[in-house]
């Protein structure tokens, strides 16, 4: 399941990240890498971006970016 499709409270272990380009590189640098657990905390009032918890901190990213992250939820 894509991270962008997770509802608040949902999440799991990252199985695949599309790490191409500057956006992919930044996602991975911020700790969204394979084998790490991630959870959606909340969605912004206008439906995008989303807030996730990863590597014990909170990160905001757009749904288009969360689309690059596959989780085993």
């Amino acid at each position, binding site marked *: 399941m894509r991270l962008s499709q997770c509802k608040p409270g949902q999440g799991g272990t990252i199985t695949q990240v599309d790490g191409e380009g*500057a*956006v992919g590189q930044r*996602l991975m640098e911020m700790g969204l890498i394979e084998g790490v657990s991630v959870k959606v905390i909340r969605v912004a*009032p*206008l439906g*995008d971006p989303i807030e996730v918890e990863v590597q014990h901190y*909170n990160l905001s990213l*757009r749904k288009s970016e969360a689309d690059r992250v596959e989780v085993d939820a």
Partner: protein
Amino acid sequence: MSGAASEATGGVSAPPAATGVKRVAIIGNPNTGKTTLFNALTGMSARVGNYPGVTVEKKTGALEPGVELIDLPGTYSLAAHSPDEMVAVNVLHGDQAGEARPHAVVVIVDAGNLQRNLFLLTQVMEVGLPIVVALNMVDAAAKAGVTVDPKALGEALGLPVVPTVASEKKGLDALRAAIRATLKDAPAPKPAWNWPPSLKQEIDALAKGQGIDAFLAGRALIDEGGAAETMLAARRGAAAREALQAARAKVRAAGSPPAKLEIQMRYAWIARAVGPCVSRQPAGPGLTDRLDRVLTHRLVGTLAFVLLMTGVFVTIFIVADPIMGLIDECFGWVGDQITASFAGGAMEGGMLQSLLVDGVVAGVGGVLVFLPQIAFLFLFIALLEDCGYMARAAFLMDRVLRFCGLSGHSFIPLMSSFACAVPGVMATRTIGNPRDRFTTILIAPLMSCSARIPVYAMLSRAFVPADGLHGFLPALVFAGMYFVGIVAAIPVALVLKGTLLKGPTPPFVMELPQYKMPTPRVVWQRVWEASKAFTVRAGTAIFAISIVIWALLYFPHQASIGEDYEARREAVRAAYGDEEKLAEEAKAERQSKLDELDHQEAGAYLRASIMGRMGHWIEPVVRPLGWDWKIGMAAIASFPAREVIVGTLRIIYDLGDEGDDEETAQKQIQDKLQAAEWPDGRKVYNLPVALSIMIFFALCAQCAATLVTIKKEMGSWKWAAFTFVYMTTLAYIGAFATYQIGMMLL
């Protein structure tokens, strides 16, 4: 790439400076308290400047006698894509022009967020400089149930680790001692992780082939489209780019993109080696989580956001406005004093007096009048940023700004611009992506700032029927002016992002830091630096422009006009006889006649000035907007600041530059405007003409301070000129359409 420095094959980095002064750079992720630590370590010795060629702030200070501390921009990674990140890498690597390479680095890490912070540390460990780690915010981490064993961490990293609480000045002495020891004899760190062979092989080959060290080769290979690639291509030409592409293709063929290999290697090592140094007690939802449940809530959060922003905005208006009025009055008073001191003297009414009063004093006042808004706006920005709310504002508003191809980071600068574009443009420094930042700067002056209000007020009160649409029409016109700017900004931003500032959509991947109490020192410094930067850097240019405009309005100052009016004044004086013997009523009558002559004289001079002639020259250009030469001239004369048009129109219509009080002033100019006629007897002003002027001023770039600030922030007069040209064109088209359509409907 382990032991990068020792593997350097004919490196390009400069050796440390030979002078006795030791240099220590401090680097860390954003939100780690780096600025607070820098301030605490350097005290009052900090100096702020700019790195040449880029608008990246350069902060240095004395750690102790003979040791200089350099504050590098906050960054998550040395994979440089923005100018900020590029400067950080260049300074560490010794490639920053005019900067000697530091002798050591302090890497500050947030104890509560160790994994991600150590990612940057592992990169810095490969630069080849000795390192001291400041393990900051250990108190907040402990509160959240996270304890880090500094001794174990130091052993795992092979580096000195000093626990600190920068906001409470704890651990600073130990940190100073560790820096001193490191400067004495510490070697460069020896990274313990192993690069994936497929990647390592290509990096080494590239380093050899291009004659650079392994660090630079690694960054150039891994960061596609990044700063290292650009720099290498600039130095070695297209062949280097081809070599990079070939190397990347080989790494990819072996399985993964280079960046993924690098990042996975680092996080894997961090988890394995450093994991055991951190213990986590399960803690309930912290303050940040509880606050965010409210502050980013769909309804309550949005409402809180709107209230907060309205509060900030209203406060700037309510608090800054009277202070601005006061500054205005002060300079008016100084001007009057100068006028008075000339009165009766041989040089009364001469050029020197006019230069001092209308040029110098008005020019300085024109610079300083911006300070209250800048100071208050940066006070709020610094508070919001330092407490952690700024990231939430960007989180909430991102979706809205995506309409113009921007991100949530642009919201605060654009909102600030409704008060004044100068601090708005300055506030764009918080936008990481240069294309987004430039686009935001270029549309910021379209937001209706407070200087437009006097223009809107004068014209709407004179020509918009107050009882129109059941009394709502004036308010509607006012709101419409604000709306016009916003509506124009959207296509302008989209066009800019599609043409001049075209590029891939930057990531909106943003840390939402823990909320914390703002540090007063950090907040105060932001306010002070912004105010100083504006006064010192922009002030001189704005002042120079004011003097030029004064000269255009003053010269040639034909003596015959003065003689003519002096003769008329003399006639009035003669007609009333001895002033002492007159009744109160007659005295007042005499004085008002003399004042009227003074105003007429000022008007006559103005009409005969170079600027007055310029008004006549451009009349054919402004005729399609429904304007006569007087309006055209007043529009040019208001180049230093939009609100100047009000005073200029008063002088042209022989009213003197200001009235006794606001009501009479408005009544006077209203009567004059309503009475103004073309030579053939038609009225100059009607509703379409008034609206055409208002639209012009809503969209034009008649503000020297903004243009000078744009030059400073974008690093080139070209962008300031571009802003002026595009906004003036937009304003002209808008005014033309308003007048022509208005006349058709009338």
